[in-house]
């Protein structure tokens, strides 16, 4: 199965939970908001669990996993 990690930067308010639990995929900018380490955020199967942790950790619902690659949109 292939999937992508999708970050809604407008929803992020800098809780910092996602990059704490998923440091290999996500990082913080100088203000504490989320940034992504690699583009595009296609997830190999061995990264999926870490990405799921990041999505589950976000209190704002700003991080999610897109499993429908037919609606593929490039990350900003």
């Amino acid at each position, binding site marked *: 199965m292939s999937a992508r990690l999708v970050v809604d930067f407008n929803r992020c*308010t*800098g*809780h*910092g*939970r996602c990059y*704490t639990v998923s440091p290999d995929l996500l990082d*913080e900018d*100088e*203000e*504490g*908001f989320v940034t992504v380490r690699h583009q595009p955020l296609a997830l190999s199967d061995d990264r999926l669990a870490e990405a799921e942790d990041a999505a*589950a*950790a976000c*209190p*704002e619902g700003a991080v999610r996993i897109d499993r429908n690659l037919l609606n593929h949109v490039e990350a900003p």
Partner: protein
Amino acid sequence: MRSAEQHEVGTCPVAHTDYRLDRPAFETYALLNAERELAPAVWNDSTEHGFLMVSRYDDVTRLLREHDTLVNDCVNAFDPNMTIPLLPNSLNPPAHNKLRRVLNPFFSPAAVKRLESLAHERAESLVAELAPRKQIDLGADFAMIYPTELFLALLGLPVEDGQMFLPWVEGIFGGFFASTPEELAAAESAVQNIMGYFSDAVAEREKNLLDPETDLVSRLLEATIDGEHLTKDEINTICLTLMTAGLDTTRSSLGYMFHHLASRPDERKRLVADPELWPKFIEESVRLYSLIIMDGRQVTADVDVMGCPMKKGDMVWLGLAQANRDPRKFPDPDAFDMERDNLNHHLGFGAGVHRCIGMHLARAELVIALETWHRMIPDYRLAEGAELTERGGQLRLQSLPLEWD
């Protein structure tokens, strides 16, 4: 006079609980829980103006993001005319976001790391001083001075000024939830004192600017928003706001956390044995013992909110503490459970654009204080016969007498 006689309440039931009042410890949560289960929205007529109380998790998180109709001109549901200024809290987008961008770098996880060695040093020094006393009041003797010193360090001000600040912070909090003119007058005089102190400190820094990347006051002096510098009044107000937001909350959190640990020796032993659990302990404590029980929001127009016809200027109470104990979101919500799978979905630090700027700092301060204390004083208990009361408005245990052998 009961405000419900003047205010249409639509389909909402009316409650009369005055949440500004001091109560026996933990009674406030029981009252809040009951009113959350009464209806999704309840009109409360205990204050002169009254307010609409929204308290279920999904509704609270949704309304926290509706910043076009629910604004921050006033954030105190008890009083739509509160005059104590707060920055950036009282701003709305987009002005709010612009000021947050100036402040955020000083509160990011990376910036907080710069303060950690000082936090360790202060915590160790304070606990070492207290250890031989074997009997203290946690709030007065430890939990207030510790965050005060770190706040001063954050602003690059002398840590020794901490003792001078304590009565000022007390005075301000009397005024936020004032029910008497005396409390209000005391709060206004405390604000004057603090603004005077900051005004001198800012003038001093202006003569000797430091690196704006690491010094917050220098950054405030140097920053421009839409081409304009911040005024001195704005800078003083920002300092005052950071102080009121950061000191009483940290003290109050430590109070409930130490009460929890003092009453549950087995849980305490587990944490003493495995200090890596402190972050989880803190997260669950911030959910279960929410201090800031509401975020107040002001209605910008005559609109219906959750079935209640609201008038422009009315206040909505977004019940953070009630949402944090909503069984629809947190199973067995009144139980302490550090293994919850949605552990950090609580609203203890708020949510949306106004969420607590200091939450990374708060977590670091709390972990360091708890880890240090329990390494140095692992066994302690509540003093026998202690009768615990909690302050209304913004909760805290008024005293927490601890003793050890």
